[in-house]
């Protein structure tokens, strides 16, 4: 695989000098994915599941084939894939349905300060309403979740464990497999926020034995507005739907209703058909690139970026032991938003802010950080542009010190 060839698939990379280093927020979208979305809107454009005419059949077929692609991709059954608006709505679905119906006063829910708001807030809400206790895994000195610290908070009262697979703000990989095993010994249900994992590494839900896992299409070369909730079928079947209406029903009477089986009982209304088809295209695209290449490319670039950053003075790196392509840092004495404006002037796109992880910012004692996040289509020139921009920001603001 040649990165320069890959870059030709992405309009922005092929046609501008932008160093795009905000991949943890959203990845760019390659031509084959855009073509598939266009194919649906241009050549089909009709609803699924209901029509008996040929176009509707074709649209339904593509939509359901996308579900099968997702199932094969994460190694689960077809009917264990629920299409959602994204990882956030997938995680909210579990909390709103299973959480609101099963959690009782005094039950304990484990989460962490390393979570994206979408992973912890749905459970904070359940805990508040159900009078359950929200318990945080103590982070270690590097702000990592460790198995040892997880054991400290796991108890017979633990009913739910809601943790990230890869931290969106720090890039750490959670030892999720061991945590899942330990949680299951206590009979707890584990929900994995894999939004930052699935785009970057091969994920096998059966090998992990997680009960639920969520991810978004737009961080893995797919469209926005589509995501996936994986759930073990027995859980999905026993859960109440949270939205009611068309397409999710079996029989409707005046006072009673029966629902379709999972996953359909969670997919009311006309779904994002083009989005699901586009996500299927993104999976094909990533598999063609191959996770061996993706992991290797991100690792090489991360090593290079950290090496170059460590040569600079007045830079604080918050996660020098990051295990993925996410690097969090600040330029000492410069507010991250001021630095980001300098980067923007130099065509370097990075994220400055709290990264939807305010509890972690409190832990770091920072209002915000600068986050550079890599993907397989980045190259050394992108890193060089970032380093140059950091130097420029340093010297520019040094004038005023």
């Amino acid at each position, binding site marked *: 695989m040649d990165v320069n060839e890959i870059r030709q698939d992405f309009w922005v990379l092929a046609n501008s000098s932008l160093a795009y280093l905000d991949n943890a927020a959203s990845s760019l979208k390659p031509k084959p994915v855009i073509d598939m979305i266009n194919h649906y809107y241009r050549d089909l454009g009709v609803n699924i599941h209901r029509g008996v005419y040929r176009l509707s059949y074709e649209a339904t077929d593509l939509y359901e084939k996308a579900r099968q692609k997702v199932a094969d991709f994460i190694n689960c059954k077809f009917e264990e894939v629920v299409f959602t608006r994204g990882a956030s709505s997938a995680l909210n679905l579990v909390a709103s349905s299973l959480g609101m119906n099963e959690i009782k006063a005094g039950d304990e829910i484990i989460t962490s300060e390393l979570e994206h708001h979408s992973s912890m807030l749905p459970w904070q809400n359940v805990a508040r309403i159900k009078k359950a206790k929200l318990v945080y895994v103590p982070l270690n000195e590097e702000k990592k979740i460790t198995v040892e610290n997880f054991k400290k908070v796991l108890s017979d009262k633990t009913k739910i464990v809601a943790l990230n697979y890869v931290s969106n703000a720090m890039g750490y990989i959670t030892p999720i497999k061991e945590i899942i095993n330990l949680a299951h010994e206590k009979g707890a249900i584990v929900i994995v926020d894999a939004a930052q994992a699935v785009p970057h590494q091969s994920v096998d839900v059966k090998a992990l034995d997680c009960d639920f896992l969520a991810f978004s299409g737009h961080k893995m070369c797919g469209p926005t507005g589509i995501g996936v909730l994986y759930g073990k079928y027995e859980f999905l079947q026993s859960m109440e739907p949270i939205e009611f209406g068309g397409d999710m029903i079996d029989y409707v009477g005046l006072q009673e209703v029966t629902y379709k089986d999972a996953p359909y009982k969670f997919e009311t209304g006309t779904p994002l058909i083009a989005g699901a088809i586009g996500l299927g295209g993104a999976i094909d695209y990533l598999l063609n690139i191959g996770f061996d290449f993706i992991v290797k490319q991100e690792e090489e670039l991360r090593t290079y970026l950290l090496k170059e950053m460590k040569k600079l003075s007045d830079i604080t790196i918050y996660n020098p032991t990051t295990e993925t392509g996410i690097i969090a840092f600040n330029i000492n004495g410069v*507010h*991250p*938003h*001021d630095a*980001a*404006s*300098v980067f*923007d*002037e130099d065509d370097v796109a990075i994220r*400055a*802010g*709290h990264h939807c992880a305010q509890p972690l*910012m409190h832990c770091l004692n920072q*209002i*915000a950080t600068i986050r550079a996040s890599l993907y397989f289509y980045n190259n050394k020139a992108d890193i060089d542009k970032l380093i140059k921009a950091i130097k*420029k920001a340093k*010297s*520019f*603001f040094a*004038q*005023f*010190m």
Partner: protein
Amino acid sequence: MSYGNLETLYRQVIMDHYKNPRNKGLKSGEDYYQVHLKNPTCGDDLTLQIKVKNNYITEVHHDGSGCSISMSAASVMSETIMGLKIEDAKKIIDNYLHMVKGEAYDAEIDMGDAIVYQGVSQFPARFKCATIAWNALDKVLEKHKVPDEK
């Protein structure tokens, strides 16, 4: 080294107000009107206090945290509106907002040092930073209209 557009955004006077903010720190007392504004996406956080006598702004205090643009703008604003009649302060708010958005504004209205934020119009991503203090002022003047809601 030439910094291009950045020089128009980060003027010396802006960075001076950032490093040495005027009127920073809040007062206690019941005769202050106060508002607290946040920009949750970037973490800018600002509290503004004013005292009004006979329709004139007699005291301005601010406190908070954020980037150089948002914090300096609060300091510059506090100096610009001190001693002004409320209706004149409102005219400046309006004019300032037009200016930083890159819209037509009245160059005849004396905005003091606030004029240096003209460069923000070339950085639309920083518009929110440059306006949080002025939006706070707008809100606090609204409160003044309703004396019960100090």
